[in-house]
């Protein structure tokens, strides 16, 4: 149901994605059948004594795009980073509640963080290519996980770059520095790098907020193409972007989940006053 509603919305919204609409029929059938990929239950998070997330419960459907929206400091990035446990890096962070990936609590003791992060890839707000060649950037993930075979690495790099829609632009200069790429290309390289370890979930923390409109629309197109194979969670400031790319949207305010629902409904018929105020631009 959710999927098909989103589909209708998508067709109304995106006139430039003509070719994709043909494929959307498939999505609708598939989405409906998928169980939640990530289930967030009663999550509370503290930075020291400051409570950043309040009682958040939310399920993220498999192979759909879920958008987290809300004003700065509302906790949407924090919540995103709990899914692959990147918050563990920050000292003084405490979390209660549970986050289940395919039914397994990722905060349970003896969870293999490496395996978790292999399954849950991440793209950051500020593109962060390593100061290495384009090839070495994409091959980094497979290499640290033990792949040494040249042919395999080459094929993985090629496939990942194709998926990230960067192959055509860089195929002749794979061994030049990734830092020479433009901002938008660097961000797509980071996406390719995340794809190279074959994740199931892709977390994107405002992936286009530092990019110009052209690069932004490329990233958005890319998200549209990736949604059939990956569960994507995207944090964004930009409500039009959330409306364009996502199937479901969650609106956060001051560390609380205010409303969560099918993107089209949330944007056209918000149930909560706060949501309506935010999406109509009255605050935030």
């Amino acid at each position, binding site marked *: 149901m959710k999927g098909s509603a989103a589909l209708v919305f998508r067709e109304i919204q995106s006139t430039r994605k003509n070719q994709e609409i043909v494929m959307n029929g498939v999505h609708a059938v598939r989405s409906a059948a998928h169980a939640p990929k990530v289930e967030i239950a009663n999550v509370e998070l503290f930075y020291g004594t400051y409570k950043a997330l309040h009682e958040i419960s939310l399920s993220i459907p498999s192979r759909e795009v879920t958008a987290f929206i809300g004003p700065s400091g509302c906790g949407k990035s924090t919540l995103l980073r709990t899914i692959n446990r990147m918050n563990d890096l920050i000292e003084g962070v405490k979390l209660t509640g549970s986050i289940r990936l395919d039914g397994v609590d990722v905060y349970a003791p003896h969870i293999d963080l490496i395996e978790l992060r*292999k399954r849950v890839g991440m793209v950051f707000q500020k593109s962060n*290519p390593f*100061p290495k060649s384009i090839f070495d950037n994409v091959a980094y*993930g497979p290499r640290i996980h033990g792949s040494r075979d040249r042919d395999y690495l080459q094929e993985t790099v090629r496939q990942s770059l194709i998926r990230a829609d960067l192959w055509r632009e860089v195929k002749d200069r794979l061994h030049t520095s990734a830092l020479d790429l433009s901002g938008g290309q660097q961000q797509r390289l980071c996406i390719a*790098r995340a794809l190279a370890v074959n994740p199931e979930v892709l977390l994107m923390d405002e992936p286009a907020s530092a990019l110009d409109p052209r690069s932004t629309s490329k990233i958005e197109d890319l998200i549209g193409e990736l949604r059939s194979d990956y569960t994507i969670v995207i944090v964004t400031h930009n409500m039009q972007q959330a409306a364009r790319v996502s199937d479901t949207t969650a609106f956060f305010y001051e560390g609380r989940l205010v409303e969560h629902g099918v993107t089209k409904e949330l944007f056209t018929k918000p149930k909560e006053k706060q949501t309506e105020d935010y999406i109509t631009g009255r605050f935030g």
Partner: protein
Amino acid sequence: MEATTISDPRSHTSRAWAPAKKRPLLARPVTERIFLLLARGIISLALLTLVALIADVAMDGMERLTWNFFVNFPSRKAENAGILAAWTGSLWLLLLTIMIALPIGVGAAVYLEEYGRRSFGTKVIEVCIANLAGVPSVIYGILGLQVFVRALSFERSLLSGALTLALLVLPIIIMASREALRTVPKGYREGALALGATKWQTTWTQVLPVAIPGIATGCILAFSRAIGETAPLITLGALTYVAQVPDSVFSPFTALPIQAFNWLSRPQPEFHTNAAAAITVLLAFMIMLNIVAILIRNRYQKRQR
């Protein structure tokens, strides 16, 4: 004030918001020029002092800087005396000190920056390291004498000397390496960890390579200090007359600064010439080390482009 008196027929500006008079494009403010002159003056003063020092020493020692000076052992006759034992001793000392201090120092820095949690313990360690960097080098000599020469009975060997010098430069290496590690952008660490890299893989493949230019520069400066140190080695009881090239870490040794110090303390002026020559060699060696530091830095920075 002047701006308001300009009479432009097209201008309807009232005095109240007349635009400020524009400065000529080329001229710089006076203060800027004064500061530039001052800065240039200071840097030339520093460079001139250095050049004068090197020139003076080099001229004093020039007549003794022959091939024989490098291949002869010390002698009672100043014109026959050479620095073979001293420069080989210095080279051994340097290599041993690097081998001991570099892994420990960089390792400690990696621990403190990448692994250590901000706890009371690490804060205490930080304060201790900062203080150790300021301890006079003689104190390290006394420590070395007690611990390495006597307690561990390494005798007055190269090993004792190198261990003492390693202790001396460790705080500097740790602080320089931490500084270098701190400049590595957070994005590299996050990027690697988010791909499922372990902390060790992240440090080894992303953080350290980026930090190497900074670490190398800091370390080489520290080692060029070690190579010029005299006091701790004399406290340690390093010999001044050595007529053999060291052949193991347990060999007795002498070093260039000790040799120079020894020659200077003799009454005969011919030996003072020897001292000047030895110091010239030491200075040349230190300048070479610094050039190596710059080359390493440039090489790695280029590789990261």
